[in-house]
């Protein structure tokens, strides 16, 4: 072939491949191949036998590569379930439960981790049509003054009512004020009926608007989220 010696696999290695290899016609091989890749027309290459030979080598390789790609099964017999199982075995040894939140009355010693409570709240919120729940954080209510004198250990909330902050994505057909109220009501109900947790306040942030197909909007999202957040009302219970 028209290429210079030096890159042959028998006995030599990839390290011997020069990057500035020049064809007999004076063109750099790298340049000829790159032009072919970008589809840039070149009057010289079109009529040059050395360039043609170099291009033949590239095309021939590409034909085998295409064949190799075609030979890949569309759906590998991957055991995705087994892989996920192995991944989750490790993950469950390294859980991030979040803070530990009080259940029940102030004098009880019952607790629930934030991750479990958040999952309950998200599920409750998603029972509303066209509503998806994202971030859900639960903290001590800063306005609660009836705290016991002893400070709780790090990561454990004081035994007072909690404050929930949840981000939701809602369908375009929802009235934002109405959906915020509905979300708040579902969380308060779930906190009482499913957990037994005292909730003082629920902050609802409408983080995104979804079209009918469930896709988030694009431009203007941030602005909508801002407006929604401004429209957010704070519902305090009892």
């Amino acid at each position, binding site marked *: 072939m028209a290429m210079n010696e030096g890159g042959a696999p028998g006995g030599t290695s990839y390290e011997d491949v020069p990057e500035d290899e020049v064809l007999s016609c004076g063109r750099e091989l790298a340049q000829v191949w790159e032009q072919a890749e970008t589809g840039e027309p070149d009057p010289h290459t079109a009529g040059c036998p050395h360039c043609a030979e170099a291009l033949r080598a590239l095309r021939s390789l590409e034909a085998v590569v295409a064949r190799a790609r075609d030979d890949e099964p569309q759906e590998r017999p991957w055991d995705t379930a087994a892989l996920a199982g192995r991944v989750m075995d490790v993950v469950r040894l390294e*859980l991030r439960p979040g803070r530990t939140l009080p259940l029940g009355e102030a004098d009880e010693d*019952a*607790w629930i981790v934030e991750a*479990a409570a958040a999952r309950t709240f998200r599920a409750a919120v998603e029972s509303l049509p066209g509503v998806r729940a994202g971030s859900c954080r639960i903290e001590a209510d800063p306005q609660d003054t009836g705290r016991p004198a002893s400070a709780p*250990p790090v*990561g454990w909330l004081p035994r007072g009512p909690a404050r929930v902050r949840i981000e939701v994505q809602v369908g375009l057909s929802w009235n934002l004020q109405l959906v915020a109220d509905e979300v708040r009501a579902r969380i308060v109900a779930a906190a009482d009926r499913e*957990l*037994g947790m005292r909730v003082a306040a629920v902050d609802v942030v409408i983080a995104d608007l979804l079209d009918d197909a469930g896709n988030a909007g694009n431009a203007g999202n941030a602005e909508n989220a801002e407006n929604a957040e401004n429209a957010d009302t704070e519902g305090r219970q009892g």
Partner: protein
Amino acid sequence: MTEQQAPRALADVVGTAVLATPGVAFLRPGLAELLRSSVGLGAGRGTSGAAGASGVRVERRKGAQGLDIEVYVVLSRGHRALDVTRAVRSAVVAALEESTPGSTPRSASARVKVTVTGVV
């Protein structure tokens, strides 16, 4: 020896009682360790939660009569978490009474902390 074995045996009693409580799916030992470390309990302070009762810790209260018991449970969906934790506490107290008939009830001075670490 008995000083160390006794809490371990008690942990088994407690663990069995917890698992028999309706609404409890299983005990989650890994997370229990994590939460304990965030409470500041050193790893060296008693290893009573071993052998079949992981997710349960039983400790004698220092300088006083009584037991400190910690239970870490994963609940089954469809049960009110607070109600299950109350049932767990009752079951633990009852199991401690039963395990020591005749002697001073250890349950009388047992503190039972129940933490829900998950819902499945």
